């Protein structure tokens, strides 16, 4: 246990040196104003992509337990550097291509081992207790960001359908609409669509597990998984499935799209762990964007050991990667 960093419960570990300097933050505002003018000018000529996205202000009370004293990653960066393969495999593709996805109306089918299976409208989900939480976001590609999510705890959604005693796992399924998602139209599918991810029920019910409907004080941009996505901050980013249309409570452990594509690279748990290397990326350190150097030491469970270590007591985390 000595390798676990001791921290007060519910206290994300974010260093003072990682705070975005005020000048950068203010510059960004100027830049955004300029970019806004450019976008609207471009919109006149090509009324497509960006113009179609409706992003609305979304108020939510900041949860002080997850409100560290630092500023999060620049919004511009967090919304233009994304992995969302349904819109293409480059980091910039989602921001350019995702506007074609229709995100209203939206509903989520919640089914499986539950007493009250039902399809839930987004509007109803948005009435669950929303709060703002600033979480670390660690990608398996060894970069990370700090994101102010708005959302509700997954357990509130579970309460609506009442999982039975048989339910031991949860599968999340992302939207897959060929006509709206360029990345689904490739000759050879990049992954086994639709995108699915899975959690153990107790992982899903952990208070850290969030269903997010917004970020940076607004509804989610499409490229970040609008209108509703999963956020599991102690696991690598790909576990946090985007644009969810179906949630199933299961008796058996589900197999995710990534596990299907490369069993030895992407395990079921995929907890952030500096001691278990991915075959293509060392996980010892990470690059906190937009820093130049990949110099930040990656922490076990992405620094959320206090909240989640008990889920894995007695487990061999190397075997169960």
């Amino acid at each position, binding site marked *: 246990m000595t390798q676990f960093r001791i921290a007060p419960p519910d206290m994300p570990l974010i260093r003072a040196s990682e705070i975005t300097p005020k000048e950068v933050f203010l510059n*960004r505002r100027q830049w955004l104003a300029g970019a806004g003018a450019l976008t609207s000018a471009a919109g006149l000529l090509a009324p497509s992509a960006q113009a179609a996205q409706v992003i609305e202000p979304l108020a939510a009370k900041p949860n002080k337990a997850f409100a560290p004293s630092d500023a999060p990653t620049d919004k511009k*960066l967090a919304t233009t*550097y994304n992995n969302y393969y349904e819109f*293409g495999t480059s*980091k910039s593709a989602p921001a350019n291509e995702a506007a074609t996805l229709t995100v209203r109306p939206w509903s989520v089918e919640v089914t499986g081992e539950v007493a009250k299976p039902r399809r839930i409208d987004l509007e109803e989900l948005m009435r669950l207790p929303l709060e703002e939480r600033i979480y670390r976001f660690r990608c398996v590609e060894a970069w990370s960001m700090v994101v102010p999510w708005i959302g509700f705890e997954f357990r509130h959604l579970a309460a609506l359908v009442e999982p039975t005693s048989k339910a031991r796992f949860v599968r999340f399924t992302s939207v897959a609409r060929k006509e709206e998602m360029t990345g689904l139209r490739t000759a050879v599918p990049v992954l086994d669509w639709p995108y699915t991810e899975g959690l153990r029920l107790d992982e899903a019910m952990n208070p850290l597990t969030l269903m997010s409907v917004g970020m940076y004080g607004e509804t989610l941009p499409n490229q970040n998984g609008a209108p509703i996505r999963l956020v599991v901050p102690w696991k690598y980013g790909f576990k946090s499935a985007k644009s969810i249309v179906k949630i199933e409570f299961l008796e058996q452990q589900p197999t995710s799209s990534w596990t299907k594509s490369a069993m030895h690279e992407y395990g079921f748990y995929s907890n952030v762990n500096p001691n278990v290397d991915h075959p293509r990326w060392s996980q010892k350190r990470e*690059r906190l964007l*937009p820093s*130049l150097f990949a110099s930040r030491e990656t922490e076990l469970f992405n620094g959320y050991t206090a909240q989640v270590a008990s889920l894995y007591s007695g487990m061999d985390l190397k075997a169960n990667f």
Partner: protein
Amino acid sequence: MADTDSLPHLARWIDVELLGKSRQLMAKALVFGLCLWPMAQLGFAVVFDPLALGANPAETIIRALGDWTIRFLLIGLAVTPLRSWTGINHLIAFRRMLGLFAFAYGSVHLMAYLAFDRLFQWGEIVQDVIKRPFIAVGFISFCLMVPLAVTSTRGWVLRLGGGHWALLHRLVYPLTFLAVLHDWWLVKRDLTWPIIYAVILALEMLARYKPVKALLKRHSPFQHNIAGR
């Protein structure tokens, strides 16, 4: 002067007036400045406008430097065929500079990777070269550039003798091929640039093939008879 005559005259004018002895120093200074430009732009962005480099500036920098390494190699390889096709013999005066710029960009590219991505952790770096073929290929390509950069001086040409020197410097063909392969294997999605590089390299190699070379020269619009020749 008939229209058909203007191209040969232009080529001759470039060769004698623009790149000839009297203005060559100025032309070289200009090309030197142009070659430095991409590096200067990156340096400027790092210091004054980091957000212009995107969310992952290290990735942006490393890729830009790698791209320019390949581009300078390809520009350098264009000198000989262009010279033979257009008859602008003084182009040869720029080949060494272009090659050395390719080496300079390649060196900074490698240094940026070692520093930003790997923090000079040599154990990790060795693992990276062994485990990831695209890194191995890029590393070999760089290693092959070193002897060419070292022997690029007039002194080394004399020491080796023209024949041996030319033989050694044929390494530029395989090393450019490996550099393009490095890019091709890295980019899994949008192959546009690797394909452009590969096509240019293929054309440059083709233009060196003797029958093609002769054909190009015979039909060159730059080398019709100029009055008085």
